[in-house]
Structure formats: structure tokens, C-alpha cells
């Protein structure tokens, strides 16, 4: 039997379809408007790490602007750890009392440890943006996830890039001086370097190891000692201010090794280093995880970052802090619930392919550690840290040995 629509039936049908579509549309909006997850962000925004904490905070602000447009629903409650583990602990407890469903932070291993304990005791998931002490993910914690390399990974990945650099440049140094900051990070890096050097078949020998105070205001003696060793390269594990002091002293004392290379520490790629030292900051090399120049999402993030903070460098701290918020928001999106158990299950199943940092998809092993975090060889070029290795991700070719201080313009 043939059924033919008359005009009235057709009009009714159109209206009914429209109503259904409208309803589904409003349902969609209702889904988008479900209460956002509360992410408690803990960063050292004051105290001796304030400079870096404030830098990380910039990425949190970018995440607040950028991620909602990509369908992530969240709000961030900001907290300041004041660069102190005991404050980090109390702030984490306060955030949980204030309703934070998930925590993210905290740049420093000591503070991160304190927060991890609070998170575990309270059964609240905690995503580590930056914090490299291997012990954090060796405690058997169920609620702690880290998207940052351990100091062992940093050292190993960073050191393995040395051979790539020597191969790419065709120059092989024979000796090195190791200057390192004498704090928890510096000591763990030192242990890692000493343990890995023989295994990685590096062609040079460390002829002098110089440890210095992390609060040092003058490194003239340390640099004089390094110069006296007459080594081919200056290997360094620094923070920011000491990296500036060290380079400045090297220029003054006319100490010109083949290059200054860090196997994976902050300092030489940071805005302040480049701004303060100008031409003398050029060619410094740091082997660290970095934003992947070949990832479209990295370009989106960097463009948003540069638009808001044109004077700042979008660096490793910025990238990992942004990814920290992304991981939290992504877990909630997939879990569809703020229940800690649901969030933990979602975090375990994390598989974020569109990321900003170099490496494969973001995922976590059974210990909550992301192991897809290779280091790039990042060299300061034309006032900007630039990926020069691995070749497939590089923007420029590496320069090694680097020009002497007086040859720079």
C-alpha cells in the first residue's frame, strides 16, 4: 500500500524532526554544561622557586583559555606552595577540602612528594607536571601519575644524545668537566651520570667534577677550577641563576671549551638566561624533552602562549604544565565522572596522541609513569632554544664546536 504525505503531515513531520533535533541539541549543551571538574593546581608561585612557578602558571592560564574550546570541561583552583614542601602539603589538603577532584603540580620533587602523600591518603588522583625524583613513582601509589621523566630517564636520554651530537658534527671530544648544582636534583643527576657513562659508551672522560652551592652568588672560583682542568667540553647540571653566573664567569675568564652541554637540567634554555646573556647565551646546548616542532598541537599551544606572553619562551616547563592540565581534563572527559576511582581508571587508560611535547602518545605504565618522554638536543640559536636533534624533529642543524666568545656578534 502506498502512503503519500499530504502537506499537513509533511509540516507536522518537519516540526517533529525539528523538535527532536532541538531537544538533542539542548541535550548536547546540557552535557557540555555538566559541572566542570575541579583541578587543584599546586605550583611554587612564591619563594625561591617563584620564577619557575610563575612560568608554569602561565601555561595553566593558557590551558584555561585553550582547552575548553576543544571540548574539555574543567575549572582550575590555583594554590601556591611557596617553594616549601610543608606548605605544599597543607595547600593540597586545603584544595581537597575546597572540593578539588584532582590535583596537578608541583614542579619540585620535594613538594611533589608531600602532595603525593596527601593525595594517596585522601584517595584523590594527582598528576605530576614536573618532578623528577624516581622514588615518587616507586612507592606503589595508586593515585599518582607522572608525565615527566625521572632523573634517571633525564640523565639517560640526555646523555645518549651526546653521541648523536658528536656523530652529526663529526667532532669527538676526549675530556669533560662536570659542574653541577649541589642539591637533590644535582646529586641525583650526578649519580645517574656516573652510573650511565660506562654503559652508554661515551667517548669522553670526566676529568673534574665540581659541585657548587645552589644559592651561590659567585661562581668565579668554580669556573677557575673548571678552566684549570683544560677539558674539551663543559658538562653542566644547573638551575637558572647559577647557569647565568657560570656563563658570565666563563666569558670573563676567557674559558672557551668546545661547548657547554647540559644532559638535562634547567637554566640555559630559559628566557632569563637568553635575555641577560644575549649573544653569550647562543649555542648553549641542553638535552631535554622539548616541544615537538612537528606536532600541530604544539604549534597551536605555542601560538596561544606567544600571543599572551610575547616576551616569554614556551619551554619544557610550559609544555609539561599544559599537558598536566590536559591529562586531568582528558581523564574527566573519558570518565564522565568526578569519582576518584573513575578518574584513576581513566588516567590508567590515558592515550593522548595529540600532545605538545616530543615523544609518543601520553600513557602511563603500571607505576603511573609515562615512559614515552625522549630528550631532544636543544641549542640556543638566534635568541631561541631550537631543536637540533633528533634530525627528524630538528628545525636547524647543530653547531659543535661552538664559536668562541669573542667571535660572536
Amino acid at each position: 500500500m502506498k502512503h503519500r504525505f499530504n502537506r499537513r503531515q509533511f509540516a507536522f513531520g518537519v516540526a517533529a524532526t525539528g523538535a527532536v533535533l532541538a531537544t538533542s541539541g539542548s541535550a548536547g549543551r546540557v552535557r557540555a554544561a555538566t559541572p566542570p571538574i575541579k583541578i587543584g593546581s599546586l605550583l611554587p608561585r612564591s619563594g625561591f622557586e617563584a620564577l619557575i612557578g610563575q612560568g608554569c602558571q602561565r601555561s595553566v592560564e593558557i590551558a584555561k583559555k585553550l582547552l575548553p574550546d576543544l571540548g574539555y570541561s574543567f575549572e582550575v583552583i590555583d594554590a601556591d606552595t611557596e617553594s616549601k614542601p610543608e606548605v605544599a602539603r597543607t595547600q593540597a589538603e586545603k584544595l581537597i577540602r575546597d572540593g578539588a577532584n584532582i590535583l596537578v603540580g608541583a614542579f619540585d620533587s620535594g613538594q611533589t612528594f608531600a602532595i603525593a602523600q596527601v593525595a594517596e591518603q585522601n584517595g584523590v588522583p594527582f598528576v605530576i607536571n614536573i618532578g623528577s625524583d624516581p622514588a615518587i613513582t616507586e612507592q606503589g601509589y595508586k593515585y599518582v601519575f607522572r608525565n615527566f621523566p625521572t632523573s634517571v630517564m633525564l640523565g639517560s636520554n640526555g646523555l645518549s644524545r651526546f653521541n648523536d651530537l658528536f656523530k652529526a658534527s663529526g667532532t669527538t671530544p676526549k675530556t669533560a668537566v662536570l659542574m653541577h648544582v649541589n642539591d637533590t636534583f644535582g646529586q641525583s643527576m650526578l649519580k645517574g651520570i656516573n652510573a650511565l657513562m660506562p654503559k652508554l659508551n661515551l667517548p669522553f672522560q670526566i676529568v673534574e667534577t665540581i659541585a657548587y652551592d645552589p644559592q651561590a652568588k659567585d661562581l668565579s672560583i668554580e669556573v677557575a677550577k673548571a678552566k684549570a682542568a683544560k677539558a674539551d667540553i663543559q658538562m653542566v647540571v644547573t638551575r637558572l641563576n647559577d647557569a647565568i653566573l657560570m656563563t658570565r664567569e666563563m666569558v670573563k675568564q676567557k674559558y672557551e671549551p668546545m661547548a657547554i652541554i647540559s644532559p638535562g637540567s634547567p637554566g640555559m634554555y630559559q628566557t632569563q638566561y637568553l635575555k641577560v646573556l644575549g649573544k653569550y647565551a647562543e649555542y648553549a646546548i641542553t638535552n631535554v624533552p622539548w616541544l615537538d616542532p612537528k606536532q600541530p598541537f604544539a604549534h597551536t599551544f605555542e601560538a596561544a602562549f606567544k600571543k599572551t606572553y610575547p616576551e616569554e619562551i614556551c619551554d619544557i616547563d610550559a609544555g609539561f604544565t599544559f599537558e598536566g592540565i590536559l591529562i586531568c581534563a582528558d581523564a574527566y572527559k573519558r570518565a564522565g565522572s568526578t569519582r576518584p576511582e573513575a578518574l584513576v581508571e581513566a588516567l590508567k587508560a590515558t592515550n593522548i596522541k595529540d600532545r605538545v611535547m616530543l615523544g609518543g602518545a601520553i600513557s602511563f605504565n603500571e607505576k603511573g609513569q609515562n615512559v614515552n618522554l625522549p630528550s631532544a638536543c636543544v641549542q640556543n640559536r638566534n635568541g631561541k632554544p631550537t631543536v637540533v636533534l633528533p634530525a627528524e624533529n630538528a628545525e636547524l642543524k647543530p653547531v659543535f664546536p661552538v664559536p668562541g666568545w669573542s667571535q660572536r656578534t
Partner: protein
Amino acid sequence: MLYLNIIVAGLLTGAVYGLMALGLSVIFGVIRVVNFAHGEMMVVGMYAAYLVATKTGLDPVAALPLVAGGLFVLGYALQRGLINRYVARPEHEQFLLLLAIATVITASLLMGFGPDARNVQLDYAYDSYQFGPLLLDKVRVLAALGAVVGVAALWAFFRLTRTGKAIRACADNQFGAEVVGLDVKRLYAVTFGIGAACVGAAGCLMLLLIDVQPYIATDYTLLAFIIVILGGLGSMPGALLGGLLVGVSEALSGFVIEPSLKSAFSFALLILVLLVRPQGLLGRA
């Protein structure tokens, strides 16, 4: 020759340390108040020199009289308006007051300038003088010369001027000074002003050597204490000697033993001096 380089570098840095500690010694020697905001005042001097340099292009060394003058006024006002009320009070109350002032200064600097390390870009920042194998950092030489001139000027002020002599009279015998009609409160304020000016001048010179951040103050307060206790609390030549000793001992221990033990060596020296000569090397028993 390497050792000579190290010792000379230590002496040059020590001279600036000496000037910085001099302010603390002057204030304690006369008013008998321990200035726990000393490092913070130096940092104020550094920021003042930074501001002058960035706004007017004036070199921190050239800005020294201006900054020292500004710090003098600040110190004078602080003593006249606040600290003077605490001079006769118990020491722990003085301690709390000055600690509060230190906290207010650091917090204000953080609010005003943020946590970023700041420095002044100088044309000669990377220059050095070469005398055969002896390599002298130009900035350090300038800073040390400035410190020596500052110490000499202060010495001349206390020895040759009426106000300087009056201040010394106050330091020797406050009651006697009041009896002969000296305005002790004003002289105390002048003394605190001079102490602040000293530390302001040291701030200008330190800006040549290090970057300024609000949080570096505590380290320098502690360093100033080590120096003045080494040299003798209240002794001006002692402060300079203490500064030079700390500078050289830091340099030598850093080079010969272990750089990260530099500060520990300064403290060891302090303990040694306290054991052998509790009043300090040039202090009065």
C-alpha cells in the same frame, strides 16, 4: 699563579663584603641595635641602582651617591619614626621589629618587581684586565675600589667631622653624651642613616657582581653577621678585615677543598674565632 688569581679574586669580592658589613657594624657599634633587616636594605639599594640605571641609563657606580643618599634618608626616617622607640626595649622585641621590617621589605619588593632576577647590562660587564698570567675581572676591580673609597670616606667622617666625633662620643658613653648636651636621638638617626647609606652603596656595587632578586637578602644578612662577628662587633676596620678574610677563605676553600663547602668554611672560621677570640679579631673585650 693560579693561586694568586684566586686570592686576588677573593680579596676583591671581600672588599665589597666588607663595605656591606660596615653598615651593620656602625649601627650596632653606636645604637646597640642589631639590624636584622640589613640584607633587605642592601637589596633595596640594589633595586634602587637597577631603577636608576634602567630609567636614566646611569651606571650603578655613578648612581652610588644618589642611592646612598636615598638610603640615608630611609634609614634616618626609620630610626626616627620607628626603631628609636625600641632602643631601650628588650633585645627580643628589637629582633621582632627588625624581622618584621625585613619581611615587609621583601614582600614589597616581590610585589613591585616580581620574582625575576634583574641585572644591569653594562658595556664592560664581561671585560677583564690581563697582567701577564694575572686576570682581573674589571667589574670586581671597580666594585672593590668603590668599597675601599666608601670605607675611607666613612673613616674620615667619623675621625674628622664634628658629627662623626659626636656619634663616637654617643657610642662610648650615651649618658655622658646626653650630659654634655648632644642630641642623642638625632645622632642615632644619623648613624642609622649612615649605616643604611653604607649598605645602599654596597648594593650598588653588588649589582655589578650579582643579579638582584627579592629573596637573596637573607643570605647577605647572615654573611654580614659572620663578617662583623669575625672582625669584631662595632669595629669598622674589623668589618673590612672580616670581609677580606671571608672573601679569601671562600675563594681558597672553594678552589682547594670543595666549592660547595665555601659557606661551611666561613662558618668554621667564625667558630674558630669565637673560640679563640670571642670579641672578634679587632673587637674590644
